[in-house]
Each structure stands twice: as structure tokens, then as C-alpha cells.
């Protein structure tokens, strides 16, 4: 059974058809690249999956249930986490505080409840160990490298025990060495049985980690094929429209 299935999903904004009649399936633990030029409908599609707004038409099945997400928290409860491009971290807080933001572990003494800093640090360290990232739970995010920030953002999704993680351009603004680090993090998620949809413009990254690649062009899904049977040249042709479909 597939983890996520989209059936004939469309979304219009007034007269504009941002996404039209898109259908695909994602298997558990699968890493799928979602590519397309600016304005091709990638973010609209991802935002529908993450519950930012509903589809105009079509059906979505997640984990065996037909779902209708009206707000991001609906999607999150179902097991879908999104890692935003700007990472949505609080620079002034520690890595552990960021991982647990909005889901703090509390300790109660009598009638009082307060933050269990120690437990949160330990659990955060566990998550970073699992991701094999050299990220110290106590460190303030402000002073972290791009790769470490990604580790913090990804650790958040692990904490939630997400089944599907949507990643929006995670390698757009970081150094080459850190790109390798982030790609390793994505593979680590797969080892844990988490499916990932990776939105990226960077061909080497997509071919480096994705098993399957989907291409959107002007709202249509024009390709959905195994990475091993494709090539960067073919995907580029599909993105720009030199090749109609594959």
C-alpha cells in the first residue's frame, strides 16, 4: 500500500490553473524528487499536501485514509512534516529548544509544571546521533552552519515521528561540503522508513539521493520515472519543455 496517493488533484487561483489533474503515489521510505521551473506549481502542490490550503478538486489518500487537510496542523497530526526553505528556526534559542519548540517536555513538581531542559537536551542529542550530525543540543542556532541548521529542522520531523517529510530546497543556500551533509541526512530519514519529497533545482542533489523523479511543467505532471532510467539531460528537457513528457 502506498503511503500517499494523489488522485486527479487540481488547484485554481481565480483563472489561473496552478496545478492541474496531478496523480501520483509515494511509497513508504521512498525519496522522490519534485522538479520544475519557477511557477511550475511545485510549491502549490506541496502546500496542498502540507495542508496550507485545500485542493480545488481531486482526492488525497494518506496512510490508507482519505484525507482533507484544512490547516497545517491537520497534516502534521496525520504524520506529514515540512522543512521550510528558510528553516523556520529561532536563531536565539538552542538547538534542543528549537527541536522541541511547541512540543516541550514538561516536568511536574507538585502542582507546578516546568520545562525539563535536561530531558530535552538528552532526547535532542539522541536525535542528532541518529542523524549522525555533529550538532550540539546546547548551542545557539545563530552560530550554526547551514548543515547543522538542517539537522535541527530535520530532527524536529523525527521528533514528531513523521511518515512523510516535505523538503523545500534544503540545499539552496549552503556550501558544497554542507550539501553532502544534508543529503546524508535525507538518506538517514529513509533508513528510518520515512518517505521524503525533495523539491530542488539542483540536478546533482536530486540524482544523488532520489529514487524517483517527478517533473511539473505549467501545473501538469509531465514525468514520473525512476532516476535510474533517466538522466539530468532528459529531466532538464522535461522542465523547460524541450521534451513534452516521459
Amino acid at each position, binding site marked *: 500500500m502506498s503511503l500517499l496517493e494523489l488522485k486527479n488533484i487540481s488547484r485554481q487561483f481565480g483563472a489561473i490553473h496552478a496545478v492541474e489533474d496531478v496523480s501520483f503515489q509515494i511509497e513508504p521510505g521512498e525519496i522522490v524528487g519534485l522538479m520544475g521551473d519557477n511557477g511550475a506549481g511545485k510549491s502549490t502542490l506541496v502546500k496542498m499536501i502540507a495542508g496550507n490550503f485545500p485542493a480545488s478538486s481531486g482526492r488525497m489518500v494518506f496512510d490508507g485514509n482519505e484525507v482533507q487537510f484544512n490547516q497545517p496542523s491537520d497534516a502534521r497530526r496525520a504524520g506529514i512534516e515540512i522543512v521550510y526553505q528558510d528553516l*523556520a528556526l529561532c536563531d536565539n534559542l538552542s538547538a534542543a529548544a528549537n527541536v522541541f519548540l511547541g512540543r516541550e517536555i514538561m516536568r511536574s513538581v507538585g502542582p507546578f509544571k516546568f*520545562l525539563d531542559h535536561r530531558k530535552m537536551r538528552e532526547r535532542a542529542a539522541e536525535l542528532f546521533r541518529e542523524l*549522525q550530525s555533529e550538532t*550540539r543540543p546546547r548551542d545557539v542556532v545563530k552560530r550554526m552552519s547551514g548543515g547543522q541548521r538542517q539537522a535541527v529542522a530535520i530532527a524536529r520531523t523525527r521528533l514528531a515521528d513523521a511518515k512523510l517529510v516535505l523538503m523545500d530546497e534544503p540545499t539552496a543556500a549552503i556550501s558544497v561540503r554542507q550539501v553532502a551533509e544534508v543529503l546524508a541526512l535525507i538518506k538517514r530519514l529513509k533508513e528510518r522508513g520515512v518517505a521524503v519529497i525533495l523539491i530542488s533545482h539542483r540536478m546533482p542533489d536530486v540524482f544523488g539521493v532520489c529514487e524517483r523523479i517527478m517533473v511539473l511543467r505549467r501545473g501538469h505532471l509531465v514525468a514520473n520515472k525512476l532516476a535510474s532510467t533517466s538522466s539530468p539531460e532528459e529531466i532538464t528537457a522535461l522542465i523547460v519543455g524541450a521534451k513534452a513528457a516521459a
Partner: protein
Amino acid sequence: MNKSPDASNLDSVFNLSERSKLGEMLRSQEFWIVVAVLIIGAVVGMIAPRFLTSANMANILQNFCFTALMAIGMTPVIMTGGIDISVGSTLGLTGVLLGLFCASGYPFAVVVLFVLLVGAFVGIVNGALVSYLKLPPFIVTLGMMSLVRSQTLVVTNNQVVYDFGKAGDTLLALGSGSFLGVPNVLWAVIVSAVVMQWLLSMTKWGRYVRAIGGNENAARLSGIPVDRVKVSTYALLGAMTGMTAIFLVGWMGAATNALGQGQELQVIAATVIGGANLLGGFGTSFGAVIGSVLIEVIRNALLLAGVNPFWQGTFVGLFILFAVLLERFRSTRA
């Protein structure tokens, strides 16, 4: 758990603290302001020996408290990236209402509750306009500053309130009394500072206040009730301003409608000098207290050293600029 070959190596990394306790202290704004207070004290003590007398120390410890109480309340507001310049006016309004209600014969406890609620109400209005209508805090509270001051004049009809009736005895005893040799208002500062710091560092509320100041958008995406937390910071500041009015009027023995005029600037200055960042995300209640001490020490020292009091603002202003520079220096080196 699937242990990777370098897991033990990672563990040693995780346990590293980024910096030592001493290094942490040397980097804190609060530490440097304490140093500044001590240096000023030593220098002024040499010029004007009266500065270091116990009578004068007691004087300083009484005077700084009113600014400190409000600065402790201002700290979470500034930490969320907000500001409240209406607190001086709120102090005035709660002060005269306190007097009027005492005079009308209500029991003291009822009056106290009422004054705290009026303060909190002003804060809730400020907070709601800032959070739900997304208006800039500076403008909202500028409007409130004018509105509340005008209402202070309306309710008193420009009369000074000094006859407090029966509840007045309790009020004056509270304002000028002391417990274990420490003025009541100083106890209020100590308790407020400890409780506030505990709230900021040990509760979800404090964590959220910090997070909102760091990245409001991220806080929202994490499911934090950003608007409610922001309103709560303004409401708390309003209530603490009401509490300050009780101690201040009880100490002075009269409530004028000019009460608290210009005090908002001292409160904000104290908070900022103590290390709260106006962009949000940083601040401690201890910083707010020590910032208030510094301002009072400057005022008192200039007076005793025989310096023309017109110079006072120059020194406070220089310290604000110094505090901002120190903050900049710390954050770029960090």
C-alpha cells in the same frame, strides 16, 4: 538504537558546552553593568563621601524600585520584539484611581485588585491591537499614552488625591514600611525579579516569549499561540504597573495626575541597559533590575557630587548608547 561507528565520538561532541560558566558571565551585559555601577560608586564615593553612607544607600535602594518593578514587567514585552511607551501614563491612571477608590471607602484588598485589573486591562488593549490588528507597538502605545494620560486628568478633574480614607492607613503603611529591615517595595522587586526569571527560563510561556522574539514566523509555524502570548506580556506589564502605583502612591502619600510622566523612558532605558534587545529574543529580569539601579545611581551620584542636575539626562543617554554598543560588540564577536 542503531549505533553507528562514530557514535561515541558524537557523544563527546554533544557533551561539550560551548563555553565555560566564567566566559558566559564575562559576555553577559548584566555583568558589565554591575561593574559600571561599582566603578561609579567607587569614584563618586571618593568625590562625595556622603554617597557611600548607609542612609544614602537606603535612599538609592528605595528609589530605584519603582522603575525596576516596571522594567521587570517590560522585559518580556521587549523580548517578544514589542515595546510599551504607555506605562508612564498607566502608572498615573492607576495611581489616581487607587487614591479615588481608597477615598470612596472600599476595603484595601478590593482596591488593590481593582488597580491591578485596570493596569492589566490597558495592557490587554495594547496587546490586542498589536497582536490581532498587527499594528506597530510603538504607535499603539503612543496613542495609549496620550489617551490614558488624558483620562487621568478627566477622572481627577486636575485635583491632587491625598485623602485616602480608611484604606489609606494600610496603603501608607505598605508604601513606607519595611519587613526584616528591607523596604516592602524592595521585597516586591526581589520577588518579582525571581518569579519573572523563573517564568522566563522554566515555563512554556517564557520559552514562547523568547521564540516569538527570535522568529515570530517560526513560532507560529510551530503551533505556538503567538497572539495570546503577546497579549499576556502586555497584560502582565500593565498589572505590574498597577502594583508599582500602589507602592509609589503609598510611599509619596499623594497621587498627582502628573504621576509617572516621562517614566516610560526610564523604564525602557533600564530594560535596554540591562541587556534586553529591542529587536526581541533576549533579556533577563536581573538585567532590568541592574539597569534600574544604574539609572538611579547616576541620578543620585550627580546630585551628591554637586553636578548640575540638568546633566542627568546626558549621562543616562550615554549609558543607553553604551549599552547598545556593548550589545552590538557582544553579538558580532559571538
